[in-house]
């Protein structure tokens, strides 16, 4: 099977983006005292009240604003989905439910959790990385 979109290996762009993500995590902890975990922020923006809801909505608005800025100044960015809408519904439900059940996703566990050497985050990251690698390879090569 060769009908998957190929992407170039861009270590410098990766490092630069990673540094911004790391800076965001540090700044949110320094100012609001919170861990920038996107699954927790998204869920809390829907289920919490008052300030607990508002700071999360502000963070999400910032994420959307980043995308809008990219469209305005640089004409957008590629989002090339590789599976159909049926698969994306299943993927979305699993990402949403699983990240809440496991108390975090790639940001909260994978970046912030690993950075503070949290045992739970190290275990969670090893599990979701392995599960993702196995799943992608099964779908693409079976």
């Amino acid at each position: 099977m060769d009908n998957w979109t190929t992407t170039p290996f861009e270590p410098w762009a990766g490092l630069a983006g990673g540094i911004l993500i790391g800076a965001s995590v540090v700044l949110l902890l320094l100012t609001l005292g919170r861990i920038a975990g996107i699954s927790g922020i998204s869920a809390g923006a829907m289920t919490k009240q008052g300030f607990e809801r508002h700071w999360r909505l502000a963070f999400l608005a910032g994420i959307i604003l980043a995308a809008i800025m990219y469209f305005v100044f640089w004409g957008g960015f590629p989002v090339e989905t590789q599976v159909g809408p049926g698969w994306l519904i299943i993927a979305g439900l699993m990402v949403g439910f699983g990240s809440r059940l496991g108390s975090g996703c790639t940001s909260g566990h994978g970046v912030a959790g690993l950075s503070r050497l949290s045992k739970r985050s190290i275990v969670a990251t090893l599990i979701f990385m392995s599960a993702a690698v196995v799943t992608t390879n099964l779908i693409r090569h079976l």
Partner: protein
Amino acid sequence: MKALVTSLFCGLLFGLGLIISGMSNPARVLNFLDWSANWDATLAFVMGGAIAIAAPGIYWVRKQGSPLFADKFDIPTSTTVDKKLIFGAAIFGIGWGIGGFCPGPGLVAVATLQSDVIIFVIAMLAGMLIHHWFQSKSSD
């Protein structure tokens, strides 16, 4: 107000980081997860760069006593690896491996207004609400 503006700025930095690194493109994420001929290792550099900043940054911030706009740090303290963590991470990982979207990239990509990305994000938010509903039912 200061807290909300800072939070918005943090979200902006985070979103820009996702786009610059190409994590907003599920093709790139899946090409990291798929260890075949066209392997794209960029994601490892994103995590490496983020941790290189966050690890010393978090260490330094926690020595500051308290955050600037809040009374205290709100950092998870549990060290128990339970079934919820294991199954949750596994379910999340499978979903990530199917679509190539985790929550941050899904939210940043939704601004393209591509119908399949909107479908993914609605399903993701629904999955979170389903979890919330189960959790509030089991704690009744």
